[in-house]
């Protein structure tokens, strides 16, 4: 066990002296207690000092820090790492690199990502169908982006996503809805390939989440899910 790191560097061999005595301290500044008349003089001067500072801010209009948001939309500079929206990277042909490996789904702390596979009868291999992302429960922790082995997820700074309806915050990030890529590869003709690809909008209406649509609603009010895992006491092994 790694006990050393918890023990202090300046721990004592001499146990009688308190460990606190070795901490370099600095006493908190205290203004002296004044008598009646000095207090009046000091009080008046201290109040005047404060008023001087606020007056300086009043007359100096350059100190105003307010940003007027909708008006300054054009000049708004966002840091490039701002996390406000999850996107799936698509190339110019409308493809993406997602292999539907479900790692992002597993790493998401609050089940905001749901990966739905699809397969065509001609191809045995599974592909990404819906990539369901629930903005309403996402905490923008960036774990899915870090976990993605193919770097096909990205957080962007597009932060204006408010709606009047919570169900509109459920997105399908997969814009590619053409034939499965395996089938597509069999088509030799470029013309046929282009017509087989159809990019869809990132939002395609709420995606049904099998009853677990809105958090906080007791189960009896929701349609029952047949294969729901039942909660069981966890068998822990006492180390």
């Amino acid at each position, binding site marked *: 066990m790694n006990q050393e790191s918890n023990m202090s560097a300046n721990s004592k061999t001499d146990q009688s002296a308190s460990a606190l005595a070795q901490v370099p301290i600095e006493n908190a500044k205290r203004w002296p207690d004044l008598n009646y008349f000095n*207090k009046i003089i000091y009080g008046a001067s201290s109040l005047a000092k404060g008023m001087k500072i606020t007056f300086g801010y009043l007359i100096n209009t350059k100190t105003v820090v307010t940003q007027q948001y909708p008006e300054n939309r054009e000049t708004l500079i966002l840091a490039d790492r701002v996390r406000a929206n999850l996107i799936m990277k698509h190339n110019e042909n409308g493809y993406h690199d997602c292999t539907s490996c479900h790692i992002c789904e597993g790493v998401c702390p609050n089940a905001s990502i749901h990966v739905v596979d699809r397969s065509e009868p001609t191809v045995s291999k599974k592909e990404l169908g819906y990539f369901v992302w629930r903005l309403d429960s996402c905490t923008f922790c960036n774990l899915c982006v870090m976990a993605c082995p193919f770097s096909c997820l990205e957080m962007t700074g597009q932060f204006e996503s408010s709606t009047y309806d919570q169900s509109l915050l459920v997105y399908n990030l997969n814009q590619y809805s053409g034939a499965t890529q395996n089938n597509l590869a069999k088509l030799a003709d470029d013309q046929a390939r282009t017509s087989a690809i159809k990019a869809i909008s990132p939002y395609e209406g709420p995606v049904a989440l099998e009853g677990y649509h809105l958090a906080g609603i007791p189960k009896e009010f929701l349609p029952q899910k047949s294969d729901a895992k039942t909660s069981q006491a966890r068998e822990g092994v006492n*180390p």
Partner: protein
Amino acid sequence: MVTLNDRISCHTPNQDGTTTQEYFINMGPQHPSTHGVLRLILKMDGETVNDIIPVLGYIHRGIEKKAEAVGYRQQVHLTDRLDYLCALMNNWAVSAAIEKALNLEVNDRIQTVRTIIAELQRIQSHQLWWGVFGMDLGAFTPFLYGFRDREKITEIFEKTMGARLTMNYFQPGGMMYDIHPDFVKDIKEFIKYFRPILKEYEDLFSGNIIVQERLKNVGIIDAQTALAYGATGPVLRASGMPLDLRKMQPYGAYSKVNFTVPVGTVGDSWDRYQVRIQEMYQSLLIIEQLIDNIPDGPHMTMKYAAKIKPPAGRYYTQMETARGIFGTFFVSDGNDRPYRMHFRTPNFNNLWSILKMAPGGRVADLVAILSSIDLVVPDMDR
């Protein structure tokens, strides 16, 4: 089972021989100066507070239960939501706990950057506290000055971490990203900007006769009582006990820097105020010593694995956040999820010392005391 009603009814004053009647009044859960949903039931006699019954749980989210359901990597983002003003320090505490469980040493670069960022966060947290303190004493202007200066640090954080409040930046094994190229430059600019501002804080607010009168000799508590009542951090240091884990059990890069620990002499609201002001100066000093020589190295020492499995055992790690000791206790059974996760949060433990500070004072004193303890309610209720 004993209920809150029983607790109150046994306090109901009897009518024999008393001329004034004590009464109960609810301060909170919606009250401007409890800063969230803390509820205090005050037993008052006129304006004098005679007894306090804190009622917690209005923002209890069951984070410890939740933590048992998610993996170790996901614990970090849960701690953002405890004490959101020290989110990064909480991130660090949990990451360090997991690193220790895995017996993982992180490199100097990570340690130094973590220390700088933690000290920036300490300043940021104290700036907000200063503003809110002004507002609680009735001066609204400091509130906005505090927020204005906090924004500078928030922007530095936003550049490096991509988030402003709940960063989830420190990960087990390192940091999510490397620091932004502007990081050092921005911090140097901030230090240059903030030193005169700190002086201005003192002119505008600390020296003010009304502030002096409101804070001095109000809510006095001695160090041993404060420690027994669980207080740590600035609240305890204001009573004169220099308990600071940065000095006593150095972690990160704290053993490499020189700084002093501000302690109070009386243990009143004024000392709690002044200790935090002086801590901001000390934090600036620490950052100045570290900012020029950040060592080179990778920002992540651990290969990314979705599942982290520490060896079975009990682990406890603690760190000094802006409000006191933040401890992470967890039991691992060798699985990828903790068997039991428990957070020792500073605010939950700091709260109870008001039971010794406030009785006998006025409502206005109670407000000043609450503000001088600097409570964050989500951290209390978890």
